[in-house]
C-alpha cells in the first residue's frame, strides 16, 4: 500500500522539473562561469535561476559559500543584457541576508537607480534597500529622496515601498523624507499615491493627532486613487477603534461618505469598515448593509464574494441586519461560484431558524464534493455554531458530519470535523454516544496519526462513562493490532482507562494489555507494562493518580527541570513537584467569525507558555536564582489610571516561599528621563520585604522593569496581604527631540500607585482533573473541611463565577456551567497549592430567595491548605 503511493508520487513529479536533481556543490561550482570574459548572458541567467531555485527550496548555504557566489555574481554588472541584470537584482535580494559584505554592490546599484534605463531603476532601488543596513542608510538617503519624487511611476513606487520596508530597521532616517513622501501623495498615478499614503501613515503612525489630521486633510482633498481611498478608510476605522472614550464624528462621516463613492472598491471597503466597527449604531448599519446587499447582486463575482464574505462575518454579531439580506443570500445559494454559494449558505444557516436547517443542509450536500477543503472547513464551522444554537438539531448535524468524515479530504479538513464532533459531544451530553460511535468508525480507516491518537484519547476519557463501555473496546483494540506505533501507544493508554474505571472490564483489559507487553515498539511495550502493573494492584488511588488523572506539568518546564537535575550531582531522586504545573488555558470557544482559509498555520508543537517565559526571565536574574521553581505567575494588574504620566503594571510571581513582584513601567513624558526606578512596598500582613531591584533607566516610551522580592510568612495560614506601593525615581529633564538630559543632576521624586493585593488565588495553580471523582477518592477525607455559607448572589451563574475567581481553582467536569432552569448545582474544582499539595473542592449550591446557599467541602493532601482555601470565601 505504502509502496504504491510512493510510486504514484514519483510519476507525478518526475521528469518535468529540470531543476529537480540540482546539487548545491555543482551549482556553486558553476558560479565560476561569472568570472569568464566575455560573459555569456544566457548561460549565466540559467545559473542564477538555479541559485534562486535552490534557495527557495530551502537549501542552506553557509556564509562562506554564499559570499563566494555573491562576489562572483558582482562581476555580472559589466554585462548589459537586460534579462541577466534583472536576474541579478533578484539574486542579490535573495542573498542579501545569507552572504557577507553584500554592500559591495551599493555603488553599482546606485548607478543603476540613477541611470537612464528606466527598466533598471525600480528593481535596483528594491535591491539596494535590501542590502542596506542601518549604518549605510544615510549614504543612500539622497538618492532615495530623489527617487521618491521621480516622475517615473515605477521608480517612485519602488522607492516608496522600499522605504516602507526600511522603516522597520531605520525609522528615524526614513522619517526625514516626509516632505518628499507628502509630495508623492499628490501624484497623478494611482499606485504612487497609494504607496505614498501608506508610507506617510507609517511615518506618522505613533502620533494620533497627526493621523487624525492626515485623514481629515485627504478626505477633503479627494484623492484620485481608489486604493488610497481604501487605505484611508482603514486608517480612519482603525483610529475609531482605538479611541476609548468619545468618538470622532468626522472620521465616521468620512467613511460613511465613501459609501457613495464612484468606485466599487471604495464602496465595499467603506461598508465593510462600518459593519465591523464597534461604535456603529443600528441606524448606520442599515446603509452599509444596504450597500453590501446591492453588491450581492453585482455581475462581478469578486464583488459578490466580498459582500457575502462580509455578511457571513457579521452574521453572529448583527444577525438582524444580515437577515434583511436573506432574499439576496437565497439567490446566491445557486451561484456558479461555489465559494460564494458556500458562504451564502453558511450565513443563512447561522442567522436562520431551526426549521430551515434541513433544507439548507441538503443544499450544501448537493455540492460538497465540488468545493475545496478550505471552504468545507467554513461549512464545518457553521455546523458547529449551529449545534450550539439548536442543540436539538444535533442528529442532523452529526450524521452530516459523519458523512463528511467518510469522504476524502485533507488533514486540516478532517481535523476541523473531528474537532467539531468533539465540541458537540462536550456541549451536549445527548450527542455523546452517537458522536463517539462516528469517531470510532472514523479511526477504523484514518490516515492521519494525530487525529487517530486524539480520538483514542477521547475514547479513553469518555468511553468508560457511557452506558455500554464494552462496545468501544473492540474499536480500540483493533488499533492495537493494525496500526503504527504512535497509534498503538495511544490505544494502550485508552484501554488502561477502561480498566481503571470498571471492575467488570478489568480482567479482559488485563488480558489485552498483557499481549501488548510483547509489542515490538519500546513506547508501546513500556506503556503496556506500566499500566498492567498498576491495574494488577487493584488500588483505586493508584489508578486515579497514574491512569485517570495524569501529570499536569508543562512539557517545556519538565524538560528544563530534568536537564538541571541531570547536570547537578545529587543522590536525591528527581522531585516532580519542582516542575511548575501547566496553566489551564481557556478552552477554545467557537468564534462568531467564520474562519476563512488562513495563510499561517498554527503549529502543533508544544509552545512555551507565558509562565515558561517568565520562569526563564526570572532565573536569569542572579538575585532570584535561589528562589527555586516558579510556581505561578498572575495576570498583569494595572497600578495606574489609563493615560497618566507613568504607567505601571504588576505581575505577581509566586515561588514556594517567596513572591517576586514584577513592575512593568512605562514613562509617557517625552521631556523626562527617569533613573533608578524602584517600586517601594510596605505591608502590615506579615510579609517581609527582602530586596528591590531597580530599573536603572526609564527613557520616554521604552518599557522598563523593576522588581521587589518579599518572603511569605512562616505561618502557613497567613497568606493574604495588601501592599502599599510607591514609584520612586530620579527625574532628569531632557530635550524631547533627542532624549538627552539637560543636565546631569536630577532630582528625586515619587509617584503613588494603587495597592497590590495578594489573594488566595495567588497561592494556587489551576489543574484540570479529567476524572474528578477518582481524584476525590484518591486524596481521601483525611484533611477534609466542610462548612456551609450563605452568599448574597443574584444567581447560580454569578455565584459560580465569583467562587472560581476567589479560589483560583480550575472547574472540572464542565461543572462551571449549570444547566439552565435548575436551582441546585454542584461545582467541582481542582488545583495545586503552593508547595505541591493537591486541593479539591466540591461546592454544593442551592439558589433560593435572592441568595445562594453553599455547602463547601475541601480536600487536600495537606492539613492546613483547606483552611487557607476556605479563607477565600470568608
Amino acid at each position, binding site marked *: 500500500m505504502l509502496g504504491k503511493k510512493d510510486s504514484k508520487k514519483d510519476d507525478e513529479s518526475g521528469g518535468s522539473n529540470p531543476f529537480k536533481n540540482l546539487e548545491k556543490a555543482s551549482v556553486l561550482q558553476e558560479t565560476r562561469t561569472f*568570472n569568464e*570574459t*566575455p560573459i555569456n548572458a544566457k548561460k549565466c541567467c540559467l545559473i542564477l535561476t538555479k541559485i534562486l531555485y535552490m534557495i527557495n527550496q530551502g537549501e542552506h548555504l553557509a556564509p562562506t559559500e554564499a559570499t563566494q557566489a555573491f*562576489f562572483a555574481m*558582482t*562581476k555580472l*554588472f*559589466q554585462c548589459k543584457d537586460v534579462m541577466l541584470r534583472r536576474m541579478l537584482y533578484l539574486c542579490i535580494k535573495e542573498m542579501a541576508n545569507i552572504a557577507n*559584505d553584500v*554592500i*559591495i*554592490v*551599493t*555603488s*553599482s546599484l*546606485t*548607478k543603476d537607480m540613477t541611470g537612464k534605463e528606466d527598466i533598471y531603476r525600480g528593481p535596483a532601488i528594491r535591491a539596494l534597500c535590501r542590502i542596506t543596513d542601518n549604518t*549605510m542608510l544615510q*549614504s543612500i538617503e539622497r538618492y532615495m529622496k530623489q527617487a521618491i519624487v521621480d516622475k517615473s511611476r515605477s521608480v517612485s513606487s519602488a522607492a516608496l515601498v522600499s522605504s516602507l520596508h526600511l522603516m522597520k530597521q531605520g525609522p528615524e532616517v526614513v522619517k526625514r523624507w516626509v516632505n518628499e513622501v507628502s509630495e508623492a501623495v499628490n501624484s497623478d498615478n494611482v499606485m504612487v499615491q497609494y504607496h505614498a499614503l501608506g508610507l506617510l501613515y507609517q511615518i506618522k503612525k505613533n502620533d494620533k493627532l497627526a493621523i487624525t489630521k492626515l485623514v481629515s486633510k485627504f478626505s477633503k482633498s479627494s484623492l484620485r486613487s481608489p486604493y488610497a481611498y481604501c487605505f484611508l478608510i482603514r486608517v480612519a476605522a482603525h483610529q475609531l477603534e482605538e479611541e476609548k472614550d468619545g468618538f470622532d464624528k468626522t472620521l465616521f462621516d468620512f467613511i460613511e461618505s465613501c459609501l457613495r463613492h464612484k468606485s466599487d472598491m471604495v464602496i465595499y471597503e467603506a461598508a465593510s469598515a462600518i459593519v465591523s466597527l464597534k461604535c456603529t449604531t443600528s441606524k448606520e448599519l442599515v446603509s452599509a448593509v444596504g450597500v453590501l446587499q446591492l453588491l450581492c447582486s453585482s455581475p462581478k463575482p469578486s464583488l459578490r464574494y466580498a459582500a457575502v464574505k462580509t455578511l457571513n462575518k457579521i452574521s453572529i454579531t448583527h444577525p438582524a441586519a444580515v437577515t434583511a439580506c436573506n432574499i439576496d443570500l437565497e439567490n446566491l445559494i445557486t451561484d456558479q461560484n461555489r465559494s460564494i454559494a458556500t458562504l451564502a449558505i453558511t450565513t443563512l444557516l447561522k442567522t436562520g431558524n431551526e426549521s430551515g436547517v434541513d433544507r439548507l443542509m441538503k443544499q450544501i450536500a448537493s455540492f460538497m464534493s465540488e468545493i475545496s477543503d478550505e471552504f468545507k472547513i467554513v461549512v464545518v464551522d457553521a455546523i458547529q455554531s449551529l449545534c450550539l444554537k439548536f442543540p436539538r438539531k444535533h442528529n442532523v448535524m452529526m450524521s452530516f458530519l459523519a458523512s463528511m468524515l467518510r469522504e476524502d479530504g485533507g488533514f486540516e479538513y478532517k481535523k476541523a470535523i473531528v474537532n467539531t464532533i468533539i465540541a458537540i459531544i462536550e456541549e451536549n451530553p445527548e450527542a455523546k454516544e452517537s458522536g463517539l460511535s462516528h469517531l470510532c468508525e472514523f479511526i477504523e480507516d484514518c490516515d492521519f496519526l494525530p487525529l487517530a491518537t486524539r480520538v483514542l484519547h477521547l475514547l479513553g476519557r469518555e468511553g468508560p462513562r457511557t452506558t455500554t463501555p464494552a462496545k468501544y473496546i473492540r474499536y480500540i483494540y483493533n488499533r492495537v493490532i493494525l496500526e503504527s506505533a504512535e497509534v498503538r501507544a495511544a490505544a494502550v493508554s485508552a484501554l488502561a482507562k477502561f480498566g481503571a474505571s470498571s471492575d467488570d472490564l478489568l480482567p479482559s483489559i488485563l488480558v489485552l494489555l498483557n499481549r501488548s507487553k510483547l509489542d515490538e515498539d519500546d513506547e508501546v511495550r513500556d506503556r503496556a507494562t506500566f499500566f498492567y502493573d498498576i491495574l494488577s494492584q487493584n488500588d483505586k488511588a493508584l489508578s486515579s493518580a497514574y491512569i485517570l488523572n495524569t501529570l499536569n506539568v508543562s512539557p517545556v518546564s519538565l524538560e528544563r527541570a530534568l536537564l538541571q537535575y541531570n547536570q547537578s550531582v545529587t543522590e536525591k531522586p528527581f522531585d516532580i513537584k519542582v516542575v511548575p504545573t501547566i496553566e489551564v488555558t481557556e478552552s477554545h470557544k467557537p468564534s462568531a467569525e467564520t474562519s476563512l482559509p488562513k495563510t499561517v498555520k498554527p503549529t502543533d508543537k508544544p509552545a512555551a507558555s507565558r509562565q515558561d517565559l517568565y520562569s526563564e526571565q526570572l532565573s536569569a536574574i542572579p538575585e532570584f536564582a535561589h528562589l527555586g521553581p516558579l510556581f505561578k505567575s498572575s495576570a498583569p494588574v494595572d497600578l495606574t489610571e489609563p493615560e497618566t504620566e507613568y504607567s505601571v503594571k504588576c505581575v505577581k510571581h509566586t515561588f514556594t516561599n517567596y513572591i517576586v513582584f514584577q513592575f512593568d513601567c512605562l514613562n509617557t513624558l517625552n521631556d523626562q528621563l527617569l533613573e533608578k526606578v524602584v517600586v517601594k512596598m510596605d505591608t502590615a500582613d506579615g510579609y517581609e520585604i527582602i530586596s528591590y531591584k531597580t530599573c536603572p533607566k526609564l527613557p520616554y516610551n521604552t518599557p522598563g522593569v523593576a522588581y521587589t522580592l518579599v518572603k511569605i510568612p512562616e505561618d502557613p495560614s497567613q497568606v493574604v496581604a495588601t501592599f502599599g506601593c510607591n514609584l520612586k525615581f530620579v527625574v532628569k529633564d531632557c530635550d524631547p527631540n533627542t532624549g538627552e538630559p539637560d543636565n546631569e543632576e536630577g532630582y528625586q521624586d515619587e509617584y503613588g500607585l494603587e495597592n497590590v493585593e495578594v489573594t488566595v488565588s495567588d497561592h494556587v495553580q489551576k489543574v484540570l482533573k479529567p476524572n474528578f471523582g477518582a481524584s476525590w477518592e484518591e486524596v481521601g477525607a483525611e484533611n477534609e473541611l466542610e462548612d456551609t455559607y450563605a452568599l448574597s448572589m443574584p444567581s447560580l451563574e454569578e455565584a459560580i463565577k465569583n467562587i472560581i475567581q476567589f479560589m483560583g481553582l480550575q472547574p472540572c467536569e464542565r461543572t462551571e456551567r449549570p444547566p439552565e432552569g435548575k436551582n441546585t448545582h454542584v461545582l467541582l474544582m481542582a488545583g495545586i497549592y503552593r508547595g505541591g499539595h493537591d486541593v479539591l473542592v466540591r461546592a454544593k449550591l442551592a439558589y433560593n430567595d435572592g441568595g445562594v446557599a453553599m455547602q463547601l467541602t475541601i480536600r487536600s493532601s495537606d492539613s492546613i491548605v483547606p483552611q487557607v482555601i476556605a479563607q477565600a470565601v470568608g
Partner: protein
Amino acid sequence: MGLLEKIESLLGGRKKDFNILVIGLDNSGKSTILNNLKTKDTKVATINPTVGFNQEKINFQSVNFNFFDMSGQSRYRSLWEHYYKESNAIIFVIDSSDRMRFVVSNEELADVVNHAEIKNKDIPLLILANKKDVKGAASENEIKNELEINRIKGRNCKVYSTNGLSGEGINEALEWLASEMKNLA
C-alpha cells in the same frame, strides 16, 4: 548583443576584455580618473565616494578595459581581494598631496603585492600619483621613494603623475597599460 559584436563573435575572435582592478585609498581620485576617460555622453557630473565597487567598461585605443573601481574607505579595503584572481592588471592610485597618509598607502600597496593571489602572478602594476596640480604635491620620485617601488620585483611597474580632473598624464599612463595588455595577449 549588437550586430557588430555578433559578427565578431561568429568569426570566432571577439576581442578579449581586460579586467583592471583600480585601488588606492579613499579620496585619491580613482573614480574621477575613470570618469575622465569616458565619452562625453557617459560622463557623470558629480562623483560621490564609492561604496563597494563600480564597474566601468572603457575602450581605450582599441583595447577593451573592464575597470573595477573599488572603494578605498578603510572598512571596504578588505573587499579588494575578492577581485584579485581575475584581474589582468592593477592600477594603484595615490593622492600625492595627502602626505599624511603616504605610509598608509605604502602598507596597503605592500599588502596587495604580497597577497597570495597576486604574488606569483605576472601582472603589471600601474601607479598613478594623482592630484599633481595641488600645491605642495609630491613629485614622481618622491612617490617612488615613499612607496618603496624598488622593493617590487619581478613585475612590470610604472609610476605616472596625473591630474584626474583635467586628464593630464592619464593618456600616457593608459597607453603604457594598453601596450602591456597587448603583449600579454
